[in-house]
Every structure is written in C-alpha cells, then in structure tokens.
C-alpha cells in the first residue's frame, strides 16, 4: 500500500519531467510535414537527387581500395542482403573502437582497418555516397537501436543535450521538436526532428548532407556554437534521436526542403 503510493508519486514525477515527449502513436516523419511535390520527389527514385549519390556509393562499394586492394564487396558481398537493416541500428557501441560510433565512423573503421585506406572526411562526397548506399539498403526497415548497457552513457548524454538550452537565443531542441512541432517558426513548419532520412538531399543545400550537418544548421539557428563533426556530443545526440525514433521506418535517401 505504502509502496504503491510511493511508486505512484515517483511515476507522476517522472511523467511531469518528460511530459512533453512525443507519444509513440503521435510520431511523424519529417516527410509528413513536406509539400506534395517534395514528397513525390523523394518517393520516385528517378526524381530523387539522392539516388545519384547512392549510385556513386554502389560503385565505391565495388571498387578495390587501399594497400590490400580490397573492396567493401570483397568482404561484405551483396549489400542488398548483407547491409539490410544495418543503418537502422547505428549509432551503436563498437568493440574495435571501444565507443559508440555512427554509420560514417563505422565505414571509416573498415577503411582504416580492413582496407588499409585513408579515412574519408566528414561530409566528403565519398563518405556521403557510401553512407547513403548502405542506408538505402535499410529503406522501409524499422529503426532498431539495441538496448546495450555500453551505450547507456551516450544515450543519457544525448537526451540531456536535447533538453538543454543553449546559444544566444537560449532555446533547446526539445522546445521546438517536442513542445512545438507542427507550429510555424516564421513560415516554416517545425517537424518532430527525426533522423530517419539521413543522409539526405536538402533542397536548401542543393546537396546531400549528413544528420550532423542538419544538427549544425539547427544550432546555428539557435546562435549556439555547433559541436564539431564526429564529436562525442554529436554521436550522443544522433543516438538519442535514433532511440527517440525507435521503430520508425528508414527513408534514406530522403529529400527535405
């Protein structure tokens, strides 16, 4: 009885703290906030500009690289089989690296350790192409971040960063993406901020870009100093965003305004 009451109070206080988190049934991909034309551009592979990048990635997948002249395909074979669902599991704890890595970093670990080739820079054409090619194999697959004690700290840090105010405007990610999604910021609809389409083609960039590039855009809007590419903060935020979107369908390469 007493324990029941205490538990009740505890639950209530937990709910109060996270009252603004989006209920699973209410989650919507950024896709649903776009106009019809942009949606059509994404769903039709012949008009989706991101597919060019995926094709480039397919060629890189087959191309021998580095000292050992090995291609990704030499070890991994048919990507449509072997990479299916993989992007939907990243970021993930990586035993070789001894830390949580995102998909781009995992690919670079293969470049370094398995191909003996130089790592590819963040936002470089080739890394985006390989990431988009690998992520394309997960299209329609549900996001499936593993429940892994080794990534618990990163997940906690990501949640904290998402809810923390920063920058000259003193806003948090949660203020826009949990509390005010669906509202208009200036003329723009605020989406829920899900990571399920990346890497994607953004019309404003007229280019492919990573999730971290998108997060930098939001931080610049907040007049905050963006975290640097590959920083533990960004990996933690990416992990939290993926966990927050657990079960949602992957869309890469998506198109966004």
């Amino acid at each position, binding site marked *: 009885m007493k324990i029941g009451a205490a538990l009740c109070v505890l639950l209530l206080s937990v709910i109060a703290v996270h009252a603004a988190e989006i209920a699973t049934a209410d989650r919507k991909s950024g896709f649903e906030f776009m106009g019809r034309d942009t949606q059509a551009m994404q769903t039709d592979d012949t008009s989706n500009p991101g597919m060019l990048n995926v094709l480039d990635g397919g060629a890189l997948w087959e191309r021998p690289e580095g000292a050992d002249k090995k291609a990704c395909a030499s070890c991994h074979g048919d990507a449509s089989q072997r990479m299916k669902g993989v992007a939907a599991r990243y970021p993930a704890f990586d035993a070789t690296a001894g830390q949580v890595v995102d998909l781009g970093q995992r690919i670079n670990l293969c470049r370094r350790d398995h191909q003996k080739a130089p790592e590819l820079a963040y936002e470089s054409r080739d890394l985006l192409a390989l990431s988009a090619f690998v992520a394309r194999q997960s299209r329609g697959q549900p996001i499936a971040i593993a429940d892994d004690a080794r990534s618990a700290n990163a997940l906690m840090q990501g949640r904290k960063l998402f809810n*923390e*105010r*920063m*920058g*000259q*405007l*003193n*806003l948090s990610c949660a*203020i826009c993406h949990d*509390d*005010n999604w669906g*509202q*208009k*910021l*200036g*003329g*723009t609809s605020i989406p829920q901020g899900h990571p399920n389409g990346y890497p994607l083609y953004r019309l404003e960039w007229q280019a492919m870009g990573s999730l971290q590039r998108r997060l930098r855009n939001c*931080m*610049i809007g907040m*007049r*905050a*100093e*963006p975290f640097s590419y590959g920083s533990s903060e960004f990996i933690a935020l990416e992990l939290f965003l993926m966990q927050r979107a657990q079960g949602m369908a992957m869309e890469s390469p998506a198109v966004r305004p």
Partner: protein
Amino acid sequence: MPFKVEGDAIQRSLTGQPGDPTEGRRIVISRQTGLCLLCHSGPFPDERFQGTLAPSLAGAGTRWTLGQLRLRLVDGRRLNPDTIMPSYYVLDGVVRVAPSFAAKTILNAAQIEDVVAFLSTLRD
C-alpha cells in the same frame, strides 16, 4: 546600461530617451535583428512568414504599459521563468553561445527602446 526592475516593469528608459517607433517596427519584422516574427504574428499584412509559437503582438500597446513591455523584452524570465522568449537585454544564464554572438545582448539599449516605442503603438 543598468536598469531597475520594479514589480513587473522597468519604468525608466534604458537610454533616458524615448525610442523611435519606425525603427522599432523595422527591428520587429527583421529576421536578423528582432526575430520576433519567428514566434509571433502581428498586424503586418505584408509579412508572409509569421510564427505561431506565441500570441499575436496586435494590441500589445493596449494590454501593457511601456514599463511592462520593456521588462518583457529585457528579461521575460522575470515574468515567466519557463518562457521560451529570449531575454533580449541580459547576458546571464546562457551557455555555448556562438563566438560571433558571445558577450553580446540580442538587442542593444537603443533598439530595446525603439521596439518598446513601436509595440506601444499597437492598439486594437
């Protein structure tokens, strides 16, 4: 510029002068300086892009005195500790500010006075 909060208002002009409402209007609709229309809407028929995160500014001059409007802009947290409206004229309590904005308030004293003067002209 020091200021004194009395109740829910700052009575004295930050510059000692009244602001310029024409300049204040320009600041309010600007996406680079005031940023108000990111969140607010208002009586600005020519502005296509207005926000829905905050109440309309229409009639603000009827609802609030000059002193109340001044405090709302200078540090709205004094009125509502959880407000999402940025504090336009105080520096404390912000972290990880981009270097180009570091140690600067969003608006300066003269701009605050211009905006206050403009808002006070917004009567229903």
